[in-house]
């Protein structure tokens, strides 16, 4: 069975400082990895994905994520946080080796709070 762990319920960071939101995953095969963001009373919005290739993936709004196969991690990062980045962030995984359309499994989410 595949799973995603987001060990931090909340991350607090001051505006202008770098941020990291952690994610580790477990799949039996090779992973597709995703980050989504959710603002209040909205659906989830896609931020970025890792499929194959370069381990550093760049996405929307200045976010990036680094795939580390040995540590089975896919941490979300941004060099300089903005107050408007405050939201709920979800990491998700699919098993690339499953052939047919594979299940998309989400972590429990991490609330990012950016303060002035």
């Amino acid at each position, binding site marked *: 069975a595949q799973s995603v762990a987001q060990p931090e319920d909340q991350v607090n960071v001051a505006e202008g400082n770098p941020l990291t939101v952690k994610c580790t995953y477990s799949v039996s095969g090779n992973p597709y990895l995703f980050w989504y963001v959710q603002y209040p009373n909205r659906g989830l919005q896609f931020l970025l994905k890792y499929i194959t290739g370069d381990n550093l993936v760049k996405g929307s709004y200045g976010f990036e994520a680094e795939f580390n196969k040995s540590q089975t991690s896919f941490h979300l990062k941004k060099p300089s946080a903005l107050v408007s980045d405050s939201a709920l962030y979800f990491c998700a995984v*699919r098993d690339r080796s499953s052939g047919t359309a594979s299940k998309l499994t*989400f972590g429990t*989410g991490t609330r990012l709070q950016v303060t002035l």
Partner: protein
Amino acid sequence: DARVTQTPRHKVTEMGQEVTMRCQPILGHNTVFWYRQTMMQGLELLAYFRNRAPLDDSGMPKDRFSAEMPDATLATLKIQPSEPRDSAVYFCASDWENTEAFFGQGTRLTVV
């Protein structure tokens, strides 16, 4: 601007009533997911379809929940009878061939 459309956005119903939620996936997408979001459980996968065929509905309470895709442009999630514990936000998402999924705005269900 392609998007996943869910209706209704909000639904308040009495316990025991039937609830039907609808989802129009993005045109051309062949995979549709139904998720439920609550504060306690987070995002739970209820069911998903590929090319209109159900692949996994193990996340749904079978006695009261049912999910179907009558055609490629419509997915439905029904609850009969509804219970207060079903109160949640229900999301539909769609994608093409294991790429990133796009989410609808959700249906906020309140069962009183």
